[in-house]
């Protein structure tokens, strides 16, 4: 019977927190060889990844406070740019400050550009940010909304977490384990 195998794969795939995607698509990937993104995909936004996958993807993982926000024009678009004041570096080599994370969309004067998906930061928030360099060399949030945890009272939560927070310590441990595996 196919079923036990399928369930085992599904369980493995979701253990890291596969909840913002609607569905058990990964089992299709393993049982038929068709990638889950070929079955169902976020129309506007990044495919779902586990925390472990996000940690592997990220070149920089930091705990930081969001200091400032401004809108800039780059590559024909408007981007929002946030300066992160890093208090802990969990992965990667921190570049010389300021660390500026960009996401598409923003407003300059009366002209505004919006995108149909994406993540934004709020000045004053404390965050754990999983950061990648995009194809244009900009610092970006890994997996869009999946790579940004807002921190409050020692707990971290993402927009994709369905209201369930994780302790910052546990998140940090998960990143450390992934770092050690990668060596």
């Amino acid at each position, binding site marked *: 019977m196919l079923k036990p195998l399928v369930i085992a794969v599904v369980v493995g795939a979701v253990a890291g927190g596969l909840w913002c995607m609607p569905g058990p698509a990964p089992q299709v990937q393993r049982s038929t060889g068709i990638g889950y*993104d070929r079955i169902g995909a976020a129309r506007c936004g990044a495919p779902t990844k586990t925390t472990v996958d996000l940690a592997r993807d990220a070149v920089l993982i930091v705990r930081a406070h969001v200091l400032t926000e401004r809108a800039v024009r780059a590559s024909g678009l408007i981007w929002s740019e946030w300066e992160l004041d890093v208090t802990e570096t969990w992965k990667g080599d921190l570049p010389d400050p300021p660390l500026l994370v960009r996401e598409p969309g923003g407003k300059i004067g009366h002209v505004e550009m919006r995108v149909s998906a994406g993540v934004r930061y709020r000045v004053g928030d404390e965050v754990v940010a999983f950061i990648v360099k995009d194809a244009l060399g900009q610092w970006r949030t890994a997996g869009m909304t999946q790579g940004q945890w807002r921190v409050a009272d020692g707990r971290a939560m993402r927009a994709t977490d369905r209201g369930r927070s994780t302790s910052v310590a546990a998140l940090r441990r998960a990143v450390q384990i992934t770092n050690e595996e990668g060596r």
Partner: protein
Amino acid sequence: MNARVRPYLVVLVAALTALSVRAYLPIWSGGPTTPTPNTWPSGASVNYAVNDQVGTQVIFQAGSLVVPAIDTAVARLGVLSGLTFINQGQTPITDPAQDGTNLLTWADTPANQALLGGGLGITTVWFTNGVITEFDVVGNGSPNSPAPGQGFFFSTLGTPGWFDVDGFVMHEAGHGIGMDHSALFNASMYPFQFAGTLKTRLPAADDDAGVGAIYAQNTGTGSVAGTVQRTGGGTVAGAHVFLVDAVTGRTRQGGFTIGAGTFTIDGIAPGIYRVYVEPVDGPFGPANFSAAWWNGVTIDNTFQTAALGGVASPTVLKVAAGATNSVGTINVNGPAPTRNMVQVFYLSTPTPLVNPVSTLEQPAPYAAWFGIFGTGVDQGPDSAFTFLGPFPDITGPSTWATSNPGFDDRIFPLSIPAETPSGSYVLQWDDPTTGELVVFPGCLEVLPPATPRAYTAPYGPGCPGSTGPVTLTGTGTPSLGNAAFSVTLAGQLGGQLAYFVLCALPDHLQVGPGCFASVDWMTSFFDLTAIALPTGGGGMLTVPFPVPNDPALAGTDIYAQVLVSDPMTPAGYALSNALALHFE
């Protein structure tokens, strides 16, 4: 009887408050309580250009007609919005920019990959002071994104495993004219697309109403407005509020509460509805609700699904054309749900998880195997899972219920009867083990059959006579030219007088203690004529209802209910259930 009922109608109409009608949630500017839509100018011509030249990379299924599919999709949005879309042909432009060209591109460039972040697609929308000036749609044309060797593939042929160009453009260009995401699974603006499905080509009632609201194209429709708040507590923002047709059980429009906990849902066809509120706790989640990122709406999704009037017996609300029905406050309560349905799958064979498809695209009648995935779905009795309304239902015991860490599943046989009207249905899970109610609106889409089909649908409680309930049923279907169609009244009230009422609209109007008129007597087609019920045969009366072969009747609905005199009841009468007759 008219004299007794109509005063109630007058009171109800007078009670309708004239709130200012706001739009369904668009891509809006302003703070969490002040949504201002961004739109193209009314009636504008919107030129667009296409770059589907992806070289030797195979991202389009051979034989696909990409540009005609794009043209079809935007033309559909044009019909809904009153905008005129004009194809300017192919363009060498590869990347979005504020350059005056509304672009649809699949070019595999660094700039596009930076924007996509591994996603299927993304749309940039430019606006100034509420007026959209440009949009650009990017489809992911890289064979190595989201992962090396695992790109997306597009088709216009309904190819299994390939994403439909038309449905994709309906969604992305929907953003381009100012629409935000919908939390209804069946809507084109739902934030997830499934490979191989075609249904998002067609706008759902939700898409239709949403576009119509921001472009002032909704005519002959009504609105529902209210506030969601915690019992004895504060208002709830970011809640999904949606309507279910009380006659057929089909889901209709939805919307969200904004910063003050208020919602307005526009573009509602006149009829009777139930109003549900659910938390955005997945599959549509806070990450998909743009107003949380852009407009400062703080989402509260830690409450249980609720309904206007309570989930045990939701209020049936009549929506009239041109009126805004203010429903006041809908109360919700914590704690955060521990149950959730996050996906359904349809299986072509009874072997679980072989050939699953994530949306069912079949006209009725159809039988399928039907899998539910989510938290705790393996728990509790089969009877806890039902589809709202009289048509599709789970027809037998589940064949599989598996508990997994964080990811449970259950598989049922599902039946979609021949009479099932096309549209989208709501799965409800009323879990007695936790007392939680969970809904999955729009998770079952029934396509229109090749030939439209007539149906009857019983609805409404009526009120019993001294001998028990009075039932009204149809025999056969009200197909044009069906001389054999009839309706039958049964209720053990032989010798009493029956008044058949046929109306253009349904209603839900309390006319006495526990007694509801389910047809809108203000829209009755003729004056009442009394028919004496036979004294034998239990007082059962069958009335022939030969359906004329008149094409003008096709697609229309009539709502029937029967009042039977019954001096032994306090009101002096009984009311049958109502019966919707849909002619085709």
